Protein backbone atom coordinates (compact mmCIF):
# COMPACT_ATOMS: atom_id res chain seq x y z
CA UNK A 1 0.00 0.00 0.00
CA UNK A 2 2.80 2.36 1.01
CA UNK A 3 4.86 1.48 -2.10
CA UNK A 4 1.80 1.89 -4.33
CA UNK A 5 1.18 5.33 -2.85
CA UNK A 6 4.82 6.35 -3.29
CA UNK A 7 5.19 4.98 -6.82
CA UNK A 8 1.84 5.97 -8.29
CA UNK A 9 0.52 8.77 -6.09
CA UNK A 10 3.47 11.04 -5.30
CA UNK A 11 5.39 11.54 -8.60
CA UNK A 12 4.52 14.58 -10.74
CA UNK A 13 4.96 12.65 -13.99
CA UNK A 14 4.07 9.03 -13.25
CA UNK A 15 4.60 7.82 -16.85
CA UNK A 16 8.13 9.17 -17.15
CA UNK A 17 9.10 7.86 -13.71
CA UNK A 18 7.95 4.34 -14.55
CA UNK A 19 9.63 4.44 -17.97
CA UNK A 20 12.88 5.33 -16.21
CA UNK A 21 12.34 2.57 -13.61
CA UNK A 22 11.57 0.02 -16.37
CA UNK A 23 14.72 1.09 -18.27
CA UNK A 24 16.79 0.58 -15.12
CA UNK A 25 15.25 -2.86 -14.52
CA UNK A 26 15.87 -3.87 -18.15
CA UNK A 27 19.54 -2.91 -17.88
CA UNK A 28 20.38 -4.15 -14.38
CA UNK A 29 20.17 -7.86 -13.50
CA UNK A 30 20.36 -7.20 -9.74
CA UNK A 31 17.45 -4.78 -9.90
CA UNK A 32 15.49 -7.27 -11.99
CA UNK A 33 16.17 -9.91 -9.34
CA UNK A 34 14.81 -7.61 -6.63
CA UNK A 35 11.67 -6.92 -8.69
CA UNK A 36 11.11 -10.64 -9.29
CA UNK A 37 11.62 -11.27 -5.57
CA UNK A 38 8.97 -8.66 -4.70
CA UNK A 39 6.54 -10.22 -7.22
CA UNK A 40 7.29 -13.62 -5.73
CA UNK A 41 6.50 -12.31 -2.22
CA UNK A 42 3.27 -10.83 -3.58
CA UNK A 43 2.40 -14.23 -5.02
CA UNK A 44 3.17 -15.90 -1.67
CA UNK A 45 0.81 -13.47 0.01
CA UNK A 46 -1.90 -14.27 -2.58
CA UNK A 47 -1.36 -18.03 -2.07
CA UNK A 48 -1.63 -17.56 1.68
CA UNK A 49 -4.87 -15.61 1.29
CA UNK A 50 -6.50 -17.96 -1.23
CA UNK A 51 -5.59 -21.20 0.57
CA UNK A 52 -6.79 -19.69 3.85
CA UNK A 53 -10.10 -18.76 2.19
CA UNK A 54 -10.49 -22.23 0.64
CA UNK A 55 -9.98 -23.86 4.05
CA UNK A 56 -12.70 -21.81 5.77
CA UNK A 57 -15.60 -23.98 6.99
CA UNK A 58 -18.10 -21.94 4.95
CA UNK A 59 -16.16 -22.78 1.76
CA UNK A 60 -16.53 -26.52 2.19
CA UNK A 61 -18.96 -26.57 -0.74
CA UNK A 62 -15.94 -25.92 -2.99
CA UNK A 63 -14.96 -29.56 -2.55
CA UNK A 64 -17.66 -30.30 -5.18
CA UNK A 65 -15.14 -28.88 -7.69
CA UNK A 66 -13.38 -32.23 -7.41
CA UNK A 67 -16.28 -33.74 -9.37
CA UNK A 68 -15.44 -31.82 -12.54
CA UNK A 69 -12.02 -33.42 -12.86
CA UNK A 70 -8.54 -32.20 -12.02
CA UNK A 71 -7.77 -30.74 -15.49
CA UNK A 72 -10.91 -28.63 -15.67
CA UNK A 73 -10.48 -27.57 -12.04
CA UNK A 74 -6.88 -26.59 -12.82
CA UNK A 75 -8.13 -24.55 -15.79
CA UNK A 76 -10.59 -22.61 -13.62
CA UNK A 77 -7.94 -21.95 -11.00
CA UNK A 78 -5.49 -20.80 -13.71
CA UNK A 79 -8.07 -18.15 -14.58
CA UNK A 80 -8.34 -17.22 -10.86
CA UNK A 81 -4.56 -16.92 -10.64
CA UNK A 82 -4.48 -14.85 -13.86
CA UNK A 83 -7.01 -12.41 -12.38
CA UNK A 84 -5.08 -12.16 -9.11
CA UNK A 85 -1.78 -11.67 -10.90
CA UNK A 86 -3.08 -9.06 -13.40
CA UNK A 87 -1.32 -6.10 -11.70
CA UNK A 88 2.01 -7.93 -11.95
CA UNK A 89 1.32 -9.14 -15.51
CA UNK A 90 0.47 -5.58 -16.62
CA UNK A 91 3.69 -4.19 -15.16
CA UNK A 92 5.68 -7.14 -16.55
CA UNK A 93 4.32 -6.47 -20.06
CA UNK A 94 5.31 -2.82 -19.66
CA UNK A 95 8.89 -3.79 -18.68
CA UNK A 96 9.04 -6.36 -21.51
CA UNK A 97 8.10 -3.65 -24.07
CA UNK A 98 10.83 -1.37 -22.70
CA UNK A 99 13.32 -4.27 -22.66
CA UNK A 100 12.49 -5.13 -26.31
CA UNK A 101 13.17 -1.50 -27.25
CA UNK A 102 16.55 -1.85 -25.52
CA UNK A 103 17.19 -5.21 -27.25
CA UNK A 104 17.48 -6.81 -23.78
CA UNK A 105 16.11 -10.18 -24.93
CA UNK A 106 17.49 -12.11 -21.94
CA UNK A 107 15.50 -9.87 -19.60
CA UNK A 108 12.38 -10.46 -21.73
CA UNK A 109 12.92 -14.21 -21.48
CA UNK A 110 13.55 -14.11 -17.74
CA UNK A 111 10.40 -12.10 -17.02
CA UNK A 112 8.25 -14.25 -19.35
CA UNK A 113 9.49 -17.50 -17.78
CA UNK A 114 8.95 -16.12 -14.27
CA UNK A 115 5.37 -15.03 -15.02
CA UNK A 116 4.59 -18.37 -16.70
CA UNK A 117 5.91 -20.30 -13.71
CA UNK A 118 3.85 -18.19 -11.31
CA UNK A 119 0.73 -18.63 -13.47
CA UNK A 120 1.10 -22.39 -13.84
CA UNK A 121 2.57 -23.55 -10.51
CA UNK A 122 0.28 -21.56 -8.22
CA UNK A 123 -3.01 -23.11 -9.45
CA UNK A 124 -1.53 -26.54 -8.65
CA UNK A 125 -1.24 -25.41 -5.01
CA UNK A 126 -4.89 -24.29 -5.07
CA UNK A 127 -6.02 -27.61 -6.64
CA UNK A 128 -4.13 -29.58 -4.00
CA UNK A 129 -5.63 -27.38 -1.26
CA UNK A 130 -9.11 -28.14 -2.61
CA UNK A 131 -8.28 -31.83 -2.57
CA UNK A 132 -6.87 -31.52 0.98
CA UNK A 133 -3.57 -32.84 -0.32
CA UNK A 134 -1.46 -29.83 0.48
CA UNK A 135 0.94 -30.27 3.32
CA UNK A 136 1.47 -27.22 5.49
CA UNK A 137 4.88 -25.64 5.19
CA UNK A 138 6.37 -26.61 8.50
CA UNK A 139 9.12 -25.09 10.58
CA UNK A 140 9.48 -27.94 13.05
CA UNK A 141 13.13 -27.08 13.62
CA UNK A 142 11.90 -24.30 15.89
CA UNK A 143 8.67 -25.61 17.40
CA UNK A 144 10.10 -28.99 18.30
CA UNK A 145 13.12 -27.64 20.14
CA UNK A 146 11.70 -24.65 21.98
CA UNK A 147 8.80 -25.17 24.37
CA UNK A 148 7.05 -21.90 25.02
CA UNK A 149 4.84 -21.65 28.08
CA UNK A 150 1.28 -20.97 26.87
CA UNK A 151 -0.03 -17.96 28.73
CA UNK A 152 -2.51 -15.27 27.84
CA UNK A 153 0.50 -13.28 26.55
CA UNK A 154 2.16 -15.97 24.45
CA UNK A 155 -0.86 -17.86 23.03
CA UNK A 156 -1.63 -15.24 20.31
CA UNK A 157 2.08 -15.10 19.39
CA UNK A 158 2.31 -18.89 19.17
CA UNK A 159 -0.80 -18.80 16.96
CA UNK A 160 0.90 -16.32 14.61
CA UNK A 161 4.02 -18.50 14.55
CA UNK A 162 2.02 -21.68 13.93
CA UNK A 163 -0.63 -20.50 11.53
CA UNK A 164 0.58 -17.25 9.96
CA UNK A 165 4.25 -18.00 9.37
CA UNK A 166 4.32 -16.46 5.90
CA UNK A 167 2.76 -13.25 7.13
CA UNK A 168 5.09 -13.10 10.13
CA UNK A 169 8.21 -13.75 8.06
CA UNK A 170 7.28 -11.26 5.34
CA UNK A 171 6.37 -8.57 7.90
CA UNK A 172 9.57 -9.12 9.85
CA UNK A 173 11.63 -9.27 6.66
CA UNK A 174 10.38 -5.84 5.50
CA UNK A 175 10.54 -4.39 8.99
CA UNK A 176 14.10 -5.51 9.72
CA UNK A 177 15.33 -4.75 6.18
CA UNK A 178 14.00 -1.19 6.43
CA UNK A 179 15.70 -0.70 9.77
CA UNK A 180 18.96 -2.23 8.61
CA UNK A 181 19.07 -0.21 5.37
CA UNK A 182 18.46 2.97 7.34
CA UNK A 183 21.22 2.21 9.85
CA UNK A 184 23.69 1.27 7.09
CA UNK A 185 22.97 4.14 4.69
CA UNK A 186 22.05 7.17 6.81
CA UNK A 187 24.95 9.18 8.18
CA UNK A 188 23.85 11.77 10.74
CA UNK A 189 25.98 14.93 10.96
CA UNK A 190 24.75 15.65 14.51
CA UNK A 191 22.85 13.75 17.19
CA UNK A 192 19.10 13.66 16.56
CA UNK A 193 16.79 10.81 17.61
CA UNK A 194 14.00 11.84 15.23
CA UNK A 195 15.20 10.21 11.96
CA UNK A 196 15.75 6.89 13.71
CA UNK A 197 12.42 7.24 15.55
CA UNK A 198 10.61 7.88 12.25
CA UNK A 199 12.26 4.85 10.65
CA UNK A 200 11.56 2.74 13.72
CA UNK A 201 7.88 3.68 13.71
CA UNK A 202 7.66 2.86 9.98
CA UNK A 203 9.29 -0.46 10.77
CA UNK A 204 6.81 -1.02 13.62
CA UNK A 205 3.89 -0.26 11.32
CA UNK A 206 5.01 -3.16 9.07
CA UNK A 207 3.64 -5.35 11.87
CA UNK A 208 0.10 -3.94 11.56
CA UNK A 209 -1.19 -7.01 9.67
CA UNK A 210 -0.02 -9.16 12.60
CA UNK A 211 -1.94 -6.92 15.02
CA UNK A 212 -5.07 -7.45 12.92
CA UNK A 213 -4.53 -11.23 12.91
CA UNK A 214 -4.01 -11.31 16.69
CA UNK A 215 -7.26 -9.42 17.25
CA UNK A 216 -9.15 -11.75 14.87
CA UNK A 217 -7.68 -14.74 16.71
CA UNK A 218 -8.82 -13.32 20.06
CA UNK A 219 -12.32 -12.77 18.68
CA UNK A 220 -12.55 -16.30 17.35
CA UNK A 221 -10.77 -18.41 19.95
CA UNK A 222 -10.18 -16.46 23.13
CA UNK A 223 -13.67 -15.21 23.96
CA UNK A 224 -13.53 -17.20 27.19
CA UNK A 225 -10.86 -14.92 28.64
CA UNK A 226 -13.66 -12.42 29.23
CA UNK A 227 -14.80 -14.90 31.91
CA UNK A 228 -11.39 -14.83 33.58
CA UNK A 229 -11.04 -12.72 36.73
CA UNK A 230 -8.43 -10.37 35.30
CA UNK A 231 -8.59 -6.64 35.96
CA UNK A 232 -8.70 -4.26 33.02
CA UNK A 233 -5.34 -2.73 33.94
CA UNK A 234 -3.65 -6.15 34.19
CA UNK A 235 -5.09 -7.18 30.83
CA UNK A 236 -3.77 -3.93 29.33
CA UNK A 237 -0.32 -4.64 30.76
CA UNK A 238 -0.45 -8.15 29.24
CA UNK A 239 -1.17 -6.53 25.88
CA UNK A 240 1.87 -4.25 26.27
CA UNK A 241 4.13 -7.20 27.14
CA UNK A 242 2.80 -9.23 24.21
CA UNK A 243 3.60 -6.48 21.69
CA UNK A 244 7.00 -5.88 23.29
CA UNK A 245 7.74 -9.57 22.65
CA UNK A 246 6.51 -9.26 19.06
CA UNK A 247 8.85 -6.31 18.52
CA UNK A 248 11.83 -8.03 20.13
CA UNK A 249 13.70 -8.57 16.78
CA UNK A 250 13.42 -4.85 15.91
CA UNK A 251 14.34 -3.81 19.46
CA UNK A 252 17.46 -5.98 19.29
CA UNK A 253 18.45 -5.01 15.74
CA UNK A 254 18.26 -1.31 16.55
CA UNK A 255 21.30 -1.77 18.83
CA UNK A 256 23.33 -1.75 15.61
CA UNK A 257 22.59 1.97 15.56
CA UNK A 258 24.06 2.52 19.03
CA UNK A 259 25.74 4.92 19.92
CA UNK A 260 25.75 6.87 16.64
CA UNK A 261 21.96 7.20 16.32
CA UNK A 262 20.68 7.04 19.89
CA UNK A 263 21.81 7.35 23.48
CA UNK A 264 20.85 4.87 26.19
CA UNK A 265 18.23 7.21 27.62
CA UNK A 266 16.53 7.47 24.23
CA UNK A 267 16.28 3.68 23.93
CA UNK A 268 13.37 3.77 26.42
CA UNK A 269 11.64 6.22 24.12
CA UNK A 270 12.16 3.86 21.16
CA UNK A 271 10.72 0.90 23.09
CA UNK A 272 7.76 2.84 24.43
CA UNK A 273 6.97 4.52 21.11
CA UNK A 274 6.97 1.30 19.09
CA UNK A 275 5.09 -0.82 21.66
CA UNK A 276 2.52 1.89 22.39
CA UNK A 277 1.86 2.27 18.67
CA UNK A 278 1.00 -1.43 18.25
CA UNK A 279 -1.12 -1.33 21.43
CA UNK A 280 -2.96 1.70 20.05
CA UNK A 281 -3.59 -0.13 16.75
CA UNK A 282 -4.89 -3.13 18.71
CA UNK A 283 -7.25 -0.99 20.78
CA UNK A 284 -8.63 0.80 17.73
CA UNK A 285 -9.83 -2.64 16.60
CA UNK A 286 -11.95 -2.81 19.77
CA UNK A 287 -14.01 0.19 18.74
CA UNK A 288 -16.09 -1.56 16.11
CA UNK A 289 -16.31 -4.25 13.49
CA UNK A 290 -13.30 -3.01 11.52
CA UNK A 291 -12.22 -4.93 8.42
CA UNK A 292 -8.70 -5.00 6.97
CA UNK A 293 -9.37 -2.19 4.45
CA UNK A 294 -10.67 0.15 7.14
CA UNK A 295 -7.82 -0.87 9.44
CA UNK A 296 -5.20 -0.01 6.80
CA UNK A 297 -6.76 3.46 6.49
CA UNK A 298 -6.61 3.89 10.29
CA UNK A 299 -2.97 2.76 10.32
CA UNK A 300 -2.14 5.17 7.52
CA UNK A 301 -3.87 8.08 9.30
CA UNK A 302 -2.09 7.33 12.60
CA UNK A 303 1.27 7.00 10.80
CA UNK A 304 0.78 10.34 9.05
CA UNK A 305 -0.19 12.07 12.29
CA UNK A 306 2.79 10.59 14.13
CA UNK A 307 5.14 11.63 11.31
CA UNK A 308 4.34 15.32 11.84
CA UNK A 309 4.22 15.06 15.64
CA UNK A 310 7.68 13.44 15.77
CA UNK A 311 9.12 16.27 13.69
CA UNK A 312 8.28 18.58 16.64
CA UNK A 313 10.42 16.31 18.87
CA UNK A 314 7.89 15.65 21.65
CA UNK A 315 10.27 13.23 23.41
CA UNK A 316 8.91 10.73 25.92
CA UNK A 317 5.58 12.62 26.06
CA UNK A 318 4.51 11.12 22.71
CA UNK A 319 4.57 7.42 23.69
CA UNK A 320 3.00 8.26 27.06
CA UNK A 321 0.15 10.09 25.33
CA UNK A 322 -0.26 7.21 22.82
CA UNK A 323 -0.46 4.74 25.72
CA UNK A 324 -3.02 6.90 27.51
CA UNK A 325 -5.18 7.12 24.38
CA UNK A 326 -4.85 3.35 23.91
CA UNK A 327 -5.90 2.76 27.53
CA UNK A 328 -8.84 5.12 27.00
CA UNK A 329 -10.03 3.00 24.05
CA UNK A 330 -9.34 -0.17 26.02
CA UNK A 331 -11.30 1.03 29.04
CA UNK A 332 -14.24 2.17 26.94
CA UNK A 333 -14.51 -0.76 24.53
CA UNK A 334 -12.86 -3.87 26.00
CA UNK A 335 -16.10 -5.30 27.36
CA UNK A 336 -18.11 -4.27 24.28
CA UNK A 337 -17.21 -7.64 22.83
CA UNK A 338 -19.98 -7.76 20.25
CA UNK A 339 -18.70 -4.67 18.46
CA UNK A 340 -15.76 -6.69 17.21
Amino acid sequence: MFLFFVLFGLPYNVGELHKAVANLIAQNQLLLLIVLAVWFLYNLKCIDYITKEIKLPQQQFLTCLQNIGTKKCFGYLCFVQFMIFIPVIAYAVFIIIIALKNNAYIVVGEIAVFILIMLLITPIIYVRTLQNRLREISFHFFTSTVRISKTIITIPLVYIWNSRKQMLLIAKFFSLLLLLLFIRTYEPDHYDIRPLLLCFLLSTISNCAIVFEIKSFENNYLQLIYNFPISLFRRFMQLIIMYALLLLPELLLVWKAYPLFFHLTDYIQLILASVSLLVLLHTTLLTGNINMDAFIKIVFAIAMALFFIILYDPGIILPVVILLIAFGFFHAYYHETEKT
Partner: protein
Amino acid sequence: MLQFNLIKKKYFDATILSVDALTINNGIVLLQGENGSGKTTLLKMIAGLIPFEGDIIVKNNFSLKKQRTAYLRCINYAETEPLYPGFLTAQELIKFFCNAKKGSVAETETLLQHLHIYDMYKKPVSIYSSGMIKKLSIALAFVGEPKWILLDEPLITTDKNAIDVICNLIKERNAKAATSFLITSHQNFNGAQLSFTNKLLAHDHTITTMHEDNA
Protein backbone atom coordinates in the same frame (compact mmCIF):
# COMPACT_ATOMS: atom_id res chain seq x y z
CA MET B 1 -27.60 -16.71 44.83
CA LEU B 2 -27.78 -14.83 41.54
CA GLN B 3 -29.72 -11.57 41.44
CA PHE B 4 -30.76 -9.89 38.20
CA ASN B 5 -31.55 -6.19 38.27
CA LEU B 6 -33.24 -4.55 35.28
CA ILE B 7 -31.49 -6.74 32.74
CA LYS B 8 -32.00 -5.91 29.10
CA LYS B 9 -30.18 -7.40 26.14
CA LYS B 10 -30.66 -5.97 22.68
CA TYR B 11 -29.24 -6.94 19.30
CA PHE B 12 -29.55 -3.85 17.14
CA ASP B 13 -33.06 -2.60 18.03
CA ALA B 14 -34.60 -5.96 18.88
CA THR B 15 -34.91 -6.86 22.57
CA ILE B 16 -33.73 -10.44 23.00
CA LEU B 17 -34.02 -10.67 26.76
CA SER B 18 -35.55 -8.48 29.43
CA VAL B 19 -35.61 -9.38 33.12
CA ASP B 20 -36.72 -6.70 35.57
CA ALA B 21 -36.02 -8.60 38.78
CA LEU B 22 -35.15 -12.23 39.34
CA THR B 23 -33.35 -14.17 42.01
CA ILE B 24 -31.99 -17.64 41.37
CA ASN B 25 -31.37 -19.48 44.61
CA ASN B 26 -28.40 -21.76 45.06
CA GLY B 27 -28.76 -25.33 43.90
CA ILE B 28 -28.90 -27.19 40.63
CA VAL B 29 -31.06 -25.16 38.30
CA LEU B 30 -32.38 -26.15 34.89
CA LEU B 31 -33.05 -23.48 32.29
CA GLN B 32 -35.32 -24.57 29.47
CA GLY B 33 -36.79 -22.88 26.44
CA GLU B 34 -37.22 -23.08 22.71
CA ASN B 35 -34.39 -22.44 20.29
CA GLY B 36 -33.70 -18.72 20.13
CA SER B 37 -35.46 -18.00 23.43
CA GLY B 38 -32.30 -16.48 24.92
CA LYS B 39 -30.90 -19.30 27.08
CA THR B 40 -27.35 -19.10 25.77
CA THR B 41 -27.53 -15.30 25.74
CA LEU B 42 -28.47 -15.34 29.44
CA LEU B 43 -25.61 -17.69 30.29
CA LYS B 44 -23.13 -15.56 28.35
CA MET B 45 -24.40 -12.44 30.14
CA ILE B 46 -23.94 -14.10 33.55
CA ALA B 47 -20.45 -15.27 32.50
CA GLY B 48 -19.50 -11.71 31.53
CA LEU B 49 -18.92 -12.62 27.89
CA ILE B 50 -21.36 -10.17 26.34
CA PRO B 51 -22.42 -6.64 27.30
CA PHE B 52 -25.95 -5.79 28.45
CA GLU B 53 -27.95 -3.18 30.32
CA GLY B 54 -28.57 -3.70 34.05
CA ASP B 55 -26.56 -5.68 36.54
CA ILE B 56 -26.11 -9.16 37.98
CA ILE B 57 -25.04 -9.77 41.57
CA VAL B 58 -23.62 -13.00 42.93
CA LYS B 59 -23.49 -14.05 46.61
CA ASN B 60 -25.30 -10.82 47.60
CA ASN B 61 -21.95 -9.14 47.26
CA PHE B 62 -20.28 -8.92 43.94
CA SER B 63 -21.71 -6.95 41.06
CA LEU B 64 -20.65 -7.79 37.51
CA LYS B 65 -20.53 -4.12 36.62
CA LYS B 66 -18.87 -2.80 39.80
CA GLN B 67 -16.69 -5.65 41.11
CA ARG B 68 -16.09 -7.53 37.88
CA THR B 69 -12.92 -9.37 38.92
CA ALA B 70 -14.37 -10.62 42.22
CA TYR B 71 -17.63 -11.50 40.46
CA LEU B 72 -15.90 -13.54 37.75
CA ARG B 73 -14.02 -15.55 40.39
CA CYS B 74 -17.46 -16.89 41.35
CA ILE B 75 -18.63 -17.82 37.85
CA ASN B 76 -17.36 -20.51 35.47
CA TYR B 77 -18.87 -21.27 32.10
CA ALA B 78 -18.84 -24.08 29.53
CA GLU B 79 -20.08 -23.22 26.06
CA THR B 80 -22.42 -25.27 23.85
CA GLU B 81 -19.87 -25.60 21.09
CA PRO B 82 -16.51 -24.77 22.64
CA LEU B 83 -13.78 -23.50 20.34
CA TYR B 84 -10.18 -23.64 21.50
CA PRO B 85 -6.98 -22.81 19.60
CA GLY B 86 -6.19 -26.07 17.79
CA PHE B 87 -2.47 -26.01 18.56
CA LEU B 88 -3.00 -26.10 22.34
CA THR B 89 -3.04 -29.42 24.16
CA ALA B 90 -5.49 -30.25 26.94
CA GLN B 91 -2.54 -30.03 29.33
CA GLU B 92 -1.74 -26.48 28.21
CA LEU B 93 -5.40 -25.43 28.32
CA ILE B 94 -5.76 -26.78 31.84
CA LYS B 95 -2.64 -24.94 33.01
CA PHE B 96 -3.94 -21.80 31.31
CA PHE B 97 -7.35 -22.06 33.01
CA CYS B 98 -5.92 -23.13 36.39
CA ASN B 99 -3.59 -20.14 36.33
CA ALA B 100 -6.46 -17.74 35.61
CA LYS B 101 -9.03 -19.36 37.90
CA LYS B 102 -6.61 -20.37 40.67
CA GLY B 103 -7.48 -24.02 40.29
CA SER B 104 -5.67 -27.30 40.83
CA VAL B 105 -4.14 -28.98 37.78
CA ALA B 106 -4.16 -32.37 39.52
CA GLU B 107 -7.90 -32.17 40.27
CA THR B 108 -8.69 -31.28 36.68
CA GLU B 109 -6.51 -34.15 35.45
CA THR B 110 -8.58 -36.48 37.62
CA LEU B 111 -11.73 -35.10 35.99
CA LEU B 112 -10.28 -35.89 32.56
CA GLN B 113 -9.58 -39.44 33.74
CA HIS B 114 -13.21 -39.80 34.86
CA LEU B 115 -14.34 -38.50 31.47
CA HIS B 116 -12.00 -40.94 29.64
CA ILE B 117 -10.02 -38.36 27.68
CA TYR B 118 -6.84 -38.36 29.74
CA ASP B 119 -4.97 -40.48 27.17
CA MET B 120 -5.20 -37.50 24.79
CA TYR B 121 -3.94 -35.12 27.47
CA LYS B 122 -0.76 -34.13 25.65
CA LYS B 123 -2.24 -34.07 22.15
CA PRO B 124 -3.36 -30.82 20.45
CA VAL B 125 -7.12 -30.27 20.61
CA SER B 126 -7.26 -29.93 16.82
CA ILE B 127 -7.34 -33.74 16.65
CA TYR B 128 -10.09 -34.11 19.29
CA SER B 129 -13.60 -35.16 18.31
CA SER B 130 -16.45 -32.76 19.15
CA GLY B 131 -17.45 -35.03 22.04
CA MET B 132 -13.94 -34.92 23.48
CA ILE B 133 -13.80 -31.13 23.20
CA LYS B 134 -17.16 -30.95 24.95
CA LYS B 135 -15.85 -33.13 27.79
CA LEU B 136 -12.72 -30.99 28.05
CA SER B 137 -14.81 -27.80 28.24
CA ILE B 138 -16.87 -29.31 31.06
CA ALA B 139 -13.70 -30.26 32.94
CA LEU B 140 -12.41 -26.70 32.46
CA ALA B 141 -15.67 -25.30 33.85
CA PHE B 142 -14.94 -27.16 37.11
CA VAL B 143 -11.53 -25.46 37.52
CA GLY B 144 -11.07 -23.40 40.70
CA GLU B 145 -13.67 -22.69 43.34
CA PRO B 146 -16.57 -21.00 41.57
CA LYS B 147 -19.87 -20.44 43.33
CA TRP B 148 -21.78 -21.02 40.10
CA ILE B 149 -20.97 -23.20 37.12
CA LEU B 150 -22.94 -22.45 33.97
CA LEU B 151 -23.25 -25.41 31.61
CA ASP B 152 -24.74 -24.76 28.19
CA GLU B 153 -26.13 -28.00 26.78
CA PRO B 154 -23.59 -30.17 28.64
CA LEU B 155 -24.99 -33.43 27.30
CA ILE B 156 -24.90 -32.84 23.56
CA THR B 157 -22.29 -34.79 21.59
CA THR B 158 -21.38 -36.80 24.73
CA ASP B 159 -21.83 -40.57 24.99
CA LYS B 160 -24.16 -42.32 27.45
CA ASN B 161 -21.41 -43.23 29.93
CA ALA B 162 -20.12 -39.68 29.91
CA ILE B 163 -23.62 -38.35 30.64
CA ASP B 164 -23.73 -40.43 33.83
CA VAL B 165 -20.23 -39.28 34.79
CA ILE B 166 -21.12 -35.61 34.18
CA CYS B 167 -24.33 -35.91 36.24
CA ASN B 168 -22.38 -37.52 39.09
CA LEU B 169 -19.72 -34.80 38.95
CA ILE B 170 -22.42 -32.13 39.19
CA LYS B 171 -24.10 -33.82 42.17
CA GLU B 172 -20.78 -34.42 43.91
CA ARG B 173 -19.53 -30.85 43.45
CA ASN B 174 -22.86 -29.45 44.60
CA ALA B 175 -22.84 -31.61 47.72
CA LYS B 176 -19.16 -31.17 48.65
CA ALA B 177 -18.36 -27.57 47.69
CA ALA B 178 -21.90 -26.12 47.63
CA THR B 179 -21.30 -25.06 44.05
CA SER B 180 -24.51 -24.15 42.26
CA PHE B 181 -25.23 -25.06 38.66
CA LEU B 182 -27.28 -23.38 35.99
CA ILE B 183 -27.78 -25.85 33.17
CA THR B 184 -29.52 -25.51 29.84
CA SER B 185 -30.57 -28.69 28.11
CA HIS B 186 -32.99 -29.96 25.53
CA GLN B 187 -32.48 -33.49 26.77
CA ASN B 188 -34.59 -34.91 29.57
CA PHE B 189 -32.77 -36.00 32.70
CA ASN B 190 -34.24 -38.83 34.66
CA GLY B 191 -34.48 -38.33 38.42
CA ALA B 192 -31.77 -40.87 39.12
CA GLN B 193 -29.30 -38.99 36.92
CA LEU B 194 -29.91 -35.49 38.24
CA SER B 195 -32.66 -33.77 40.17
CA PHE B 196 -33.13 -30.02 39.98
CA THR B 197 -33.85 -27.67 42.84
CA ASN B 198 -35.37 -25.14 40.53
CA LYS B 199 -36.47 -24.89 36.91
CA LEU B 200 -36.51 -21.73 34.84
CA LEU B 201 -38.21 -21.05 31.55
CA ALA B 202 -36.88 -18.74 28.86
CA HIS B 203 -39.94 -17.60 26.98
CA ASP B 204 -41.30 -14.44 25.42
CA HIS B 205 -37.96 -12.60 25.84
CA THR B 206 -37.86 -13.08 29.60
CA ILE B 207 -37.02 -15.64 32.27
CA THR B 208 -39.61 -16.99 34.67
CA THR B 209 -39.57 -19.62 37.42
CA MET B 210 -41.24 -22.76 36.15
CA HIS B 211 -41.29 -24.97 39.11
CA GLU B 212 -39.61 -25.17 42.48
CA ASP B 213 -39.38 -27.93 44.98
CA ASN B 214 -37.13 -27.89 47.97
CA ALA B 215 -35.08 -30.91 47.11
